[in-house]
């Protein structure tokens, strides 16, 4: 019994040492483990006299083993310190930024809510399209009858050349326990007139299946009903309790007309119910474009069969305000605010006329551009992830405000960091200057400069930052070191 317990405790001791050894740099690990195992042997000899186990003794042995973690961390810390100069290299900086950027992009691609939000605003609608609604009641948002649509389409028009129509199903009803479909009944040419692309549609435009109407599904409906995998074009599917032929999927964020719709049932004009009321999409003729000049117009019509109607035609917003627009606005604001939070000077002043070669200067500017570029990419994706990672679809208000604020702050602080970081990088090797040393005294600032001196560990430059800016020394300066300094730096920074 005692032997088994001792063996179990020994196993725990070795496990503790094994765990601690993982922290030790690989090159030192073998010797470190050998030493600690030897020391453990002595600890056991002293704390288990005659091989007898006692609580106090075992506690001391356990405490001894736990000390191995501190030793391992100490060795690891020393190795980290040795590597520190290399961590400050330009490549490491870019790699870290690239990793953050990649994580942001990856998260945006893998999170459905973020992916959908990113698509909003990608699809443009032609600027010569108008949405016509009944304005008799005053607000200009009431639907008009399908009969009137057919009448307009059949007659010669001066202002308009093409019409399309859709009506919203006012009473979506769940069928056999399925969630309610939000249906719209539309003329067959609706998406052609709008110029919106349909995904997964038949390439030859076919897809009619006799008695069944064609149906276009929203991306939300495809996600919800088919798990994101759209059915084959031309395949009959059940939509809201009726059969229809799948004609394509409208990409997320493409629909910007009134009504939230899961499926558009495309029907011939004569099949659209006489009493159906909906919205009219009209393409302006050349004459109409000249007359309206992009503004909304009031249309009055005297119909012999219906009372005189007053309608309001409003240009369809050519592009939805999506995350991209918010991002551009916030990034521009951040750019304008940047001079208020940091100096945009690069601190390129030198004590001498010496300048790095044009190639090095080019590399330096490319490095700064890469940093700012990646900061701006992060400024788009990370706030988008933050605002929409829990949203099922693009939403207004709270996520938009969150995205706006986060983008502004991230872009502002990111560009500020990029500039500050650049000012502390040696113009020759782009590694960060280090080992700050205080030089001079503030009380003697008119006799000699005082401030902080930092050095490039590659031995290329010294950076002098004035502690108290004066008219003759107001900004940081680089002092380029000549070859006579090289012997001082041989071996420095080698990990």
């Amino acid at each position, binding site marked *: 019994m005692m032997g088994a317990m001792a063996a179990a405790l020994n196993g725990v001791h070795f496990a503790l040492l094994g765990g601690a050894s993982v922290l030790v740099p690989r090159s030192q690990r073998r010797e470190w483990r*050998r*030493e600690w*195992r*030897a*020391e453990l*042997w*002595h*600890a056991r*000899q*002293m704390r288990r006299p005659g091989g007898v186990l006692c609580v106090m003794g075992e506690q001391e042995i356990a*405490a*001894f*083993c*736990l*000390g*191995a*973690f*501190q*030793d391992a961390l*100490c*060795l690891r810390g*020393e190795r980290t310190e040795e590597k520190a100069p290399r961590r400050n290299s330009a490549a490491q900086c870019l790699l870290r930024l690239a990793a953050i950027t990649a994580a942001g992009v990856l998260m945006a691609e893998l999170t459905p809510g973020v992916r959908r939000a990113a698509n909003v605003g990608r699809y443009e609608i032609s600027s010569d399209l108008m949405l016509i609604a009944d304005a008799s009641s005053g607000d200009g948002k009431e639907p008009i009858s399908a009969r009137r649509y057919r009448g307009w389409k059949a007659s010669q028009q001066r202002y308009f050349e093409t019409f399309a129509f859709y009506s919203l199903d006012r009473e979506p009803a769940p069928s056999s326990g399925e969630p309610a479909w939000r249906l719209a009944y539309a003329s067959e040419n609706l998406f052609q007139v709008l110029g919106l692309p349909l995904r997964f549609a038949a390439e030859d435009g076919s897809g009619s299946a006799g008695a069944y109407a064609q149906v276009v599904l929203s991306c939300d409906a495809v996600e919800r009903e088919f798990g994101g995998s759209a059915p084959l074009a031309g395949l009959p599917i059940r939509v809201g309790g009726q059969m229809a032929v799948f004609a394509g999927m409208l990409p997320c964020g493409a629909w910007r007309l009134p009504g939230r719709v899961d499926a558009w049932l495309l029907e011939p004009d004569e099949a659209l119910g006489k009493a159906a009321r909906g919205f009219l999409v009209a393409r302006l003729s050349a004459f109409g474009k000249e007359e309206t000049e992009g503004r909304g117009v009031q249309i009055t019509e005297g119909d012999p069969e219906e009372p005189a109607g007053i309608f309001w035609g409003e240009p369809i917003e050519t592009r939805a305000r999506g995350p991209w627009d918010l991002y551009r606005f916030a990034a521009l604001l951040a750019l304008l605010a940047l001079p208020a939070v940091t100096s945009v000077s690069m601190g390129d002043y030198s004590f001498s006329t010496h300048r790095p070669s044009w190639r090095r200067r080019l590399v330096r500017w490319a490095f700064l551009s890469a940093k700012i570029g990646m900061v701006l990419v992060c400024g788009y994706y990370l706030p988008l992830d933050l605002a929409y990672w829990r949203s099922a679809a693009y939403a207004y208000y709270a996520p938009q405000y969150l995205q706006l604020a986060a983008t502004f702050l991230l872009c502002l602080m990111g560009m500020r960091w990029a500039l500050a970081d650049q000012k502390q990088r040696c113009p020759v090797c782009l590694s960060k200057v280090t080992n700050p040393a205080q030089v001079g005294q503030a009380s003697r600032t008119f006799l000699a400069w005082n401030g902080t001196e930092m050095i490039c560990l590659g031995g290329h430059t010294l950076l002098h930052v004035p502690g108290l800016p004066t008219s003759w020394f107001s900004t940081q300066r680089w002092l380029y070191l000549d070859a006579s300094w090289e012997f001082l730096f041989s071996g420095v920074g080698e990990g």
Partner: protein
Amino acid sequence: MAAQGGTEVKLSHTAAMILQAIHAGFVYGFSIMEMTGLPSGTVYPAMRRLERDALIRSQWEKQSIADAEQRPPRKYYKLTTAGKATLEASRRRYPLLERLVPAFTPGEEARQT
């Protein structure tokens, strides 16, 4: 912190005690722990730093000696010339150091044989 010609290295009391213990003949980690009463988490990292600063150096015991005594070989530590100089300076700084860690007495266990 490398001790180089003419530079006096100032050690902490713990490091000075470990240096004194090694000088006194307690030449492997566990014996230093026993002598100084310091925990393993203090002694071993301190010895790493002393070795890094070239105040002590280590050497593995011969396997044959360890085999003869039926135990694993020990890693022994020894003061370098710089270490001896630093210890002298530390003794002036910490006058009780020699009393805290008395010199080796024959027959005492847990020391180098």
